[in-house]
Every structure is written in C-alpha cells, then in structure tokens.
C-alpha cells in the first residue's frame, strides 16, 4: 500500500540532465503496419514541466501510452522511475502506476460516481483509511482545484473545465511522482484554460511533481513548460526551452511554432497533380 501523505523523498529540482525520471532509448513502435516511432530518444527531467508537442498524428498520445505501460514497445528501452518497462511484470506495473497520475483528454471521470467518490476512488481501492481521513484528503485535493463546493455533484452536471479539474484532483489524490496530462487544453474556454495552466504550474512546484504535458497548443504550453520536445516523423526534431524553440533554425520547427499552413508538413494530403487529373478526365477542354 502506498503511504497516504507520500512516501517519496522531497525532490530537489536542479535542471540536471542525469536526473531524468523517464529515459527512452532507441524506441521503435508501430501500429497497423505503420511505424510511429523509429529510434526515439527522450529524457524527461525530474521535477520539471516537460511538454511534448508535435503535429496531430505524430504519436504524442501513443508516447504517453508507452510511458505508462499501456502498450509495449517493439524494441528499445523505456525506464520510468528506475523501472525498465521491458522486464516489468503486471503486478509491478500496477505498483509503478500508483506513483503516476494521469489526466485524460476528456477527464475520464467514472460517470456513476459523484465528484467526491471519483476523487476518493483510488484511496478506497488502494488503502484501508478510515472514512474521516478519506474525506479530509479528498476535500483538500478538491480545494486545491477550487471545486470543494462541487463535491456532491455528478460528473454529468459539470462543465468541461470543471470535469478536467476534478480529474486532476483525482490524479493527485495518491500523491504521484509523475503527473501526465494528455491534451489538457483541448476545448476549454479561456478562463478554464487559464485555471488549468495555473494548476499545472502550482501542482508541479508545490508538490515537487514531475509533469509531462502532451499538447499542440503552442501559446499555452510556452507559458508553462520548462522543457519542450517537438516530435515529427517519429523522432525528436527539436528540444529546448520554449524561447529556444521559437527561434529554432529549422523549417519544421518554425512551421509548427508559427502555425504556418504549409511547409515541411504539407497542407495537401498526397494526391496526383490536380491540373493533370482534370485534363485526364477531360474536364478542361
């Protein structure tokens, strides 16, 4: 059983490349016969907010599934908090996952449980704490995301932003070492978005968590990330602080960070020449 107030030691957070909590080496992975990653190397520093960015379809979410052991790599190694996922057994994987929290794109709250019970869910499943203590822990976490007053509501009664904040409270209720956000800004209004951004920063600093944020919202993520990895074509094409990436001497990085419609990532899906096609069909005299 995991201790309730956290068994991990306080984490110092100097930006030291050797202090990485996730190490990915030479990772290869494909789905449906299509290679997604080929020779991917990533080091995610402990105690920092790391953003993984890239155009749609580059496998950002797949990377999260690989890091959390939901899918297995074809070759290469993934080491998370000292555990090599290649040789980990299912039971050990579950132990490792108790040290991780994950915020899903749509919150993924259990729809048959109230907000309070959703946040209490991991505690009830993994600990034998007395009800009084569970109540206290859950309300503390809900207070941290500003939703203590919504404890008795059902997930269906929440707005999109509230939904994600409850999911965030649930993700931190076991005091994880690593907190993973899958596209946390999608479909949020500016206010909810600001709230989520502030929470990511505050939770990271206050709890000493390592945060991994997958997103393609350049502006939002630039304000909060310490390190950014830009993925494209199954590889890391750029790595650095958001400022460094904005002035990165590479076409693809400039296209992505600047939001340009055409560039190395083409605007058009591959197709034969349009003019030639029209000629061939006799639609042009």
């Amino acid at each position, binding site marked *: 059983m995991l201790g309730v107030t956290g068994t991990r030691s306080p984490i110092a957070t100097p930006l030291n490349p050797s202090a990485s909590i996730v190490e990915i080496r030479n990772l290869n992975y494909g789905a449906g016969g299509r290679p997604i990653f080929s020779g991917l190397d990533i080091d995610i520093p402990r105690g920092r907010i790391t953003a993984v960015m890239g155009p749609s379809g580059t496998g950002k979410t797949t990377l999260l599934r690989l890091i959390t052991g939901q899918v297995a790599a074809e070759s290469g190694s993934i080491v998370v908090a000292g555990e090599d996922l290649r040789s980990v057994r299912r039971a050990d994987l*579950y*132990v490792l996952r108790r040290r991780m*929290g994950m915020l*899903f794109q*749509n919150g*993924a709250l*259990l*729809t048959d449980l109230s907000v309070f019970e959703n946040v209490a869910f*991991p505690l009830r*499943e993994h600990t034998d704490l007395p009800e009084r203590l569970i109540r206290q822990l859950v309300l503390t976490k809900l207070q941290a995301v500003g939703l203590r007053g919504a404890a008795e509501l059902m997930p269906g009664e929440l707005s999109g932003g509230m939904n994600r904040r409850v999911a965030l409270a649930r993700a931190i209720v076991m005091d994880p070492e690593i907190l993973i956000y899958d596209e946390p800004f999608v479909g949020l209004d500016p206010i909810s978005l600001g709230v989520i951004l502030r929470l990511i920063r505050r939770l990271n600093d206050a709890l000493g968590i390592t945060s991994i944020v997958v997103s393609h919202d350049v502006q939002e993520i630039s304000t909060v990330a310490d390190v950014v990895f830009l993925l494209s074509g199954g590889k890391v094409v750029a790595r650095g602080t958001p400022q460094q990436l904005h002035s990165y001497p590479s076409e693809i990085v400039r296209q992505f960070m600047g939001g340009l419609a055409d560039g190395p990532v083409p605007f058009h899906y591959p197709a034969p020449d349009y003019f030639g096609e029209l000629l061939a069909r006799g639609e042009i005299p």
Partner: protein
Amino acid sequence: MEELWTSLIESLVGLGDVVRFLLRLVAESPRALLRFDLIAKQIYNSGALSLVIIMLSGLFVGMVLALQGFQLLQRFGSEDALGTAATIGLVKELGPVVTALLFAGRAGTALASELGLMRATDQLSAMEMMAVDPIRRVVVPRFLGGVIAMPLLAAIFSVIGIYGAQLVGVQIMGVDAGSFWSQMRASVGLSDINEGIVKSCIFGVTCSLIAVYEGYYATPTAEGVGTATTRTVVTSAVIILFLDYLITAAFLK
C-alpha cells in the same frame, strides 16, 4: 471453400477468446465476492430493474398458455390437466427461455452499452492508470450480478405465469380450481423444476458473459457501442435457443 474455412477458423478463435475471458472472470470471482456491495448493486441493476417487464411478460405468457392449452386439452376432454400442462410448459421451457431473451434485451444491452461507453470515454483506461484492474472492479461484479439475477427472474416469471394461467383457465374458462391445482401438484416433479433451474442458471451465465464480453471489447466509438449492443441481443438469442435444445435433449435421457 477457402473463405468458409477461414471464417470457420475465425469463429473458433473468437470462441476461444470468449472462453478465455470467461475463465478470467471465474478466476477473479472469489475475490470479487468479498466486495458484495458492488455485486449487490449490479443485481439491482440487472435484476430489480428488469422485474416489471419480467412480471408483465410472465403474466401474459401464462394467460396465452392457458387459452391455447385449454383449447387443445378440451379436444381430449382433459381440461383438468390444464394446471399441469401450463406449469410444465412454464417451469421447464418458457420461464427460462423467455426470461433469458428478455434479460438479454433489457439487462444485457444495458451492460454492453455501459461497458462500451466506459471504454469509449477512457474510463476503463483511467482505472488501468489508477492501478485498478477494470476486469476485477467493473466487469466481474456486472457478470456475477447477471448470473445471480437471471435464475431469480426466471423463477418469478414462472410463478407469475402460473398465476396468469390460473386466472384465465379457472376464472374465465371455468376449469375446476381444485383439479387445476391438485393435478399440478401431483404430476409436476422435482426433476421438472430442476431442469428449469439448470436452464436458467446456464442462460444467466451465457447472457451475462456475452453482454460483458461485447461491451468490454467494443470498438470505442458511437458506432462500435451500437454494434456491441446489437450483437449482444442477437448472439444471446441464438445461443440461448441452441443451448435450450441441447439441455432439453440431455434431460430426456
């Protein structure tokens, strides 16, 4: 010919998957029984919420059975045997089968679509990520809830059906109440009731298994959940009727 062969092999592989899934559910069941509150909730969902439809259907089936039986038996001058005929028909055959078909339509579809939607909205993945096995926490209680609820529903169906038969046979068609009940008690044996119990238990396992399997492995899209729900009803209905024949034949020996 080759296509037929491939599809035969595919369906055998599919059957193997279902059996493996069943074994996993059975292996997890003892631990799930320790948390009976979860199962009780599912017995309520599958059983208690199906009560009205089961009772109404039982009543009407019993009433029709009495009408048809009365007409038939009258030709041989043995209307007094109506109680026996209706009871045997209900307890051995119509009770388990019709209940199972209704159960697949009412509770099975609910189970399949609930699990499918949980899959589509990442709730099952979220549980995995919280180090909670969704099979143990979500699927097994639903499966066991169905397995327990189904025989109880079948029994209620038969009892209400007999009452319906009595209503039509005795109150309307004028069969003597004394001979209706006494003939029934004299000629319906424990083996008849056993056959009904065995059938309803097997149908309970079958319906619940198909529902949770289809839901758990549903394609996580709106269309996928719809397909899973449809397949639950269709597969359940066909397999129930097929198994019904096998069990009936086995009891004849």
